[in-house]
């Protein structure tokens, strides 16, 4: 192993490239949270901040793994199943992602040991490469941080989220297994933990999180809709800044572990909210901002578009499997108990082809039809038609708010119906007969399950509203006149509406 000094990534990875957000008018409505709440600014600038938020999660994670291994095999009485797949999942998708972007990545325990090995430090920053060490104008020592391990660059061909797409789809194919069997959850989460640690030793900084972690994949997509971001206060300060401590690192913090160029952040996708840039910036120019929902509106590549298709297909598939009245579909997915390999094969083939082929094909058709409709009119006015890829990525973007709200809609009844298990396993996490808080033996009590549809319908309609709004904004940007824009977007809007009608039929039909 070498004790190599890492080279800051001056040019962001392809899908992390930064271009101005096309849907204008967002800057005025942003709120600088760190200025608004100075104690929060003080807190996130402390070196121990991230350690303090990750450590409790790490301990819980270890406890969950122990419960999965040594606790009861009964899923709804084991904390790993109830806390991870019911509570954590709901909080993540319904609260953290919409309102706090990728805050989960800042507290995630997976990279704990990997990062510890890389940095050989839990809290402090380490010494710099002496060749790059210098003093800033404000007297802060700046330089490239030294990392332990191979520090290899991730292969360029893999600097996208395809591994995350396929990994997530693969995991979700076996969801019936790990949602019910504690030991399978242990294998899945434990493997991710090990892979994260190994990759941290081999590759640079948060390579695992950026390109491999299957959870990170959908967080990156849906965080675009989030109402929270880390951005520079004044981009002019960054333009004139010679030191770039946010990239290289300073005595106050590490260079961006996500290998981003924080001063040029335009999207949330690959920012893990670790707050290192807030600590390192010698001009106190990086901050946390509140912003309107769906402020990042640009998909950069087909990998991100396909992530949106996969998430929509999974939301639909899970709604059918876990909330629909069709027992035979459930049996097909539940391979471990039913051992119906033919049914499982059919379920897998349907899920994968819907995610990777069918839904994308529907969108390709809708986008092409829209371009054709717009071109007819555009030809009359000699307007140049935008390229297919540009229109396709723009019109797939509405699946971000729609997919996110579809997942919230799907997850909500899971919490309402299974919420009482949270109280049970809090008192008896291993299913060993404990009763720590006196709630171990409360009967299973669904919480207002009849409210489900009344909450689901508005959620889906909110998703559709944002989908149509952002889609129309993209259309207006891409096409010369308003009529062409509407014509171009009409087929996609119809498809989006059809998806919502399908979900409504599933939930209240």
């Amino acid at each position: 192993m070498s004790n190599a000094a890492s080279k800051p990534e001056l040019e962001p990875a392809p899908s992390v490239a930064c271009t101005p957000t096309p849907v204008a008018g967002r800057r005025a409505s942003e709120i600088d949270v760190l200025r608004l709440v100075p104690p929060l600014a003080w807190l996130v600038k402390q070196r121990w901040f991230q350690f303090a938020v990750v450590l409790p999660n790490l301990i819980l994670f270890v406890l969950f793994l122990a419960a999965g291994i040594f606790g009861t095999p009964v899923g709804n009485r084991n904390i790993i199943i109830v806390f991870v797949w019911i509570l954590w999942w709901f909080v993540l998708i319904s609260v953290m992602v919409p309102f706090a972007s990728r805050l989960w990545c800042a507290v995630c325990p997976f990279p704990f040991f990997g990062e510890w090995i890389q940095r050989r430090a839990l809290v402090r920053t380490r010494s710099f490469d002496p060749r790059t060490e210098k003093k800033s104008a404000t007297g802060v020592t700046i330089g490239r941080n030294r990392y332990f391990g191979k520090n290899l660059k991730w292969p360029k061909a893999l600097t996208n989220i395809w591994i995350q797409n396929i990994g997530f789809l693969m995991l979700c194919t076996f969801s019936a297994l790990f949602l019910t069997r504690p030991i399978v959850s242990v294998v899945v989460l434990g493997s991710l933990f090990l892979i994260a640690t190994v990759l941290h030793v081999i590759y640079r900084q948060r390579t695992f999180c950026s390109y491999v972690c299957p959870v990170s994949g959908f967080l990156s997509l849906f965080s675009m809709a989030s109402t929270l971001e880390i951005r520079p206060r004044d981009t002019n300060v960054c333009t004139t800044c010679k030191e770039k401590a946010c990239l290289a690192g300073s005595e106050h913090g590490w260079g961006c572990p996500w290998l981003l160029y924080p001063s040029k952040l335009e999207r949330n996708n690959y920012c893990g909210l670790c707050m290192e840039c807030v600590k390192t910036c010698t001009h106190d120019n990086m901050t946390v901002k509140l912003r309107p929902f769906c402020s990042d509106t640009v998909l950069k590549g087909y990998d991100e578009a396909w992530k949106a298709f996969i998430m929509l297909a999974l939301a639909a598939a899970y709604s059918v499997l876990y909330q629909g009245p069709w027992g035979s579909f459930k049996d097909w997915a539940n391979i471990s108990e039913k051992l119906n390999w033919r049914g499982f094969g059919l379920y897998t083939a349907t899920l994968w082809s819907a995610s990777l082929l069918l839904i994308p094909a529907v969108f390709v058709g809708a986008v092409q039809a829209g371009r054709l409709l717009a071109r007819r009119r555009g030809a009359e006015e000699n307007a140049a038609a935008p390229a297919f890829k540009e229109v396709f990525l723009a019109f797939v973007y509405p699946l971000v708010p729609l997919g996110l709200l579809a997942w919230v809609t799907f997850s909500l009844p899971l919490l309402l119906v299974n919420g009482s298990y949270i109280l049970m396993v809090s008192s008896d996490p291993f299913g060993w007969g404990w009763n720590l808080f006196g709630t171990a033996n409360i009967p299973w009590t669904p919480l207002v399950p009849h409210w489900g549809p009344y909450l689901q319908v508005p959620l889906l309609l909110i998703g559709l509203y944002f989908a149509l709004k952002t889609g129309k904004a993209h259309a207006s940007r891409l096409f010369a006149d308003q009529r062409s824009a509407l014509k171009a977007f009409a087929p996609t809007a119809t498809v989006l509406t059809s998806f919502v009608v399908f979900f409504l039929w599933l939930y209240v039909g």
Partner: protein
Amino acid sequence: MNKRQRMTETAAVVLTLALLTGVAVAVPAYQRHRVRNEAAGAQVVELYASAERGIWTEERLLGWNSFFKHAEKRPIRIKAGQPTLLRLTSVDVHHSFSIPELRIVPHDVPPGHWTEIRLDPQERGTYTITCYTVCGSKHSTMDAELQVF
């Protein structure tokens, strides 16, 4: 690195290791302490019911081994004249536990919960444990021998 940074780093390392070790030590220790307290001097017998295998067994069926462990039907032995705490759990479906000859009426044994029954058999002999809930295709074999010696 100044002294304060070094101390913070050391504290973080110590805290991490202490908490991880603490979990590993405290959890089984608490379980042992709790069962001992519950038993209050009685001998403790833990039985796992499995409908898939059609047995009551003393072999521990836990998260890691319940998938594949082949538990054999063996007599359950307790000492005569000594108070006994029977702790029963199911690893799959609802069962109900009964020893009619010892006047132990059917007790519900739901999956993942622990049902506790106290008994104090005075007479030596062999008694039959029976499941009174139709628990699956192997329900008819869902019995066991309780040997009081």
